């Protein structure tokens, strides 16, 4: 039964660890470079990359069943829905150029 797990090898774990440490150093270094609005984009891009690496290898999703993929994907999908709908509301509030009290009278 132990051969049911085709989990990562120790070598893969060490490579994953090295890349996570490298990306941490990279994100600190990039934070001190003036990229204007792209500082945020790069920082979040690196964080998403690190999270993906952790999910695929440390959390074994790369080697897991399709049902596990579905659940992990559902978590991320609902998170994006939460962000998208909340931001769609807050960002668009000023667009009509009239105070909210207008609707209340």
């Amino acid at each position: 039964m132990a051969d049911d797990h085709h989990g990562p090898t120790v070598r893969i774990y060490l490579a994953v660890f090295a890349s996570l440490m490298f990306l941490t150093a990279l994100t600190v270094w990039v934070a001190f470079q003036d990229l204007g609005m792209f500082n945020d984009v790069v920082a979040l891009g690196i964080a998403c990359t690190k999270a993906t690496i952790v999910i695929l290898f440390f959390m074994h999703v790369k080697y897991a069943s399709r049902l596990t993929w579905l659940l992990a994907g559902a978590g991320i999908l609902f998170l994006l829905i939460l962000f998208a709908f909340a931001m769609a509301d807050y960002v668009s509030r000023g667009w009509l150029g009239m105070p909210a009290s207008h609707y209340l009278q």
Partner: protein
Amino acid sequence: MADHAVHHDHPHGLAHQFEDMPQQKESAIIGMWSFLITEILFFGGFFATYLIYRSYYPEAFFEGSSHLDISLGAFNTAVLIISSLTMAMAVHKSHEGNKKGIMVYLILTGILGLTFLVVKYFEYSAKIEYGLVPGLVWHPHGENSPQLALFYSLYFGMTGMHALHMIIGIGLLIWLFIKTAQGTYTAEYNAPVEIFGLYWHFVDIVWIFLFPLLYLLGTQGGGH
């Protein structure tokens, strides 16, 4: 699979509602991921709040972030990544049924988790000393003091909930260590070690996002 269950009368650790060990383990992993979805959305609420207020008050968020110690934040990021490696190794050893290996890597993971919390304790102490705790000791009097308080409320809310997850994690880790020492886990029955690993890595991922959003934001000094 049904034949399999008949041959193994009652393998160690197999609950009667499952056909065999792989099915039981798969169910445990699916169950843990279902729980993690609720955790993703729980922290998602914090991140959405952060996103909204940061888009409203970028200057105050930059200023608040600039008071956080990047080297301590980076150090703790590294500590958590190392602890994820040791946790992954504990799970790896559990697949081999290597009791001593599991115990060694669980201890290392626990020590790293405690290291993280000790650093966090010193960071919180400094914030209390400088009066940057909204509602408790709040010294800023500038024009943007209320917006700054929003940043620090989110800082304490997010890192505090994260730290609570670490404390719960260390508690579970001690329990796992005792069960391992009692010889509960074998090459066949090790799902508790595996799903605890999933929890631990999830808590690491939360910090992977907290670090740039809270600590690295202030380096560009009030830019836009």
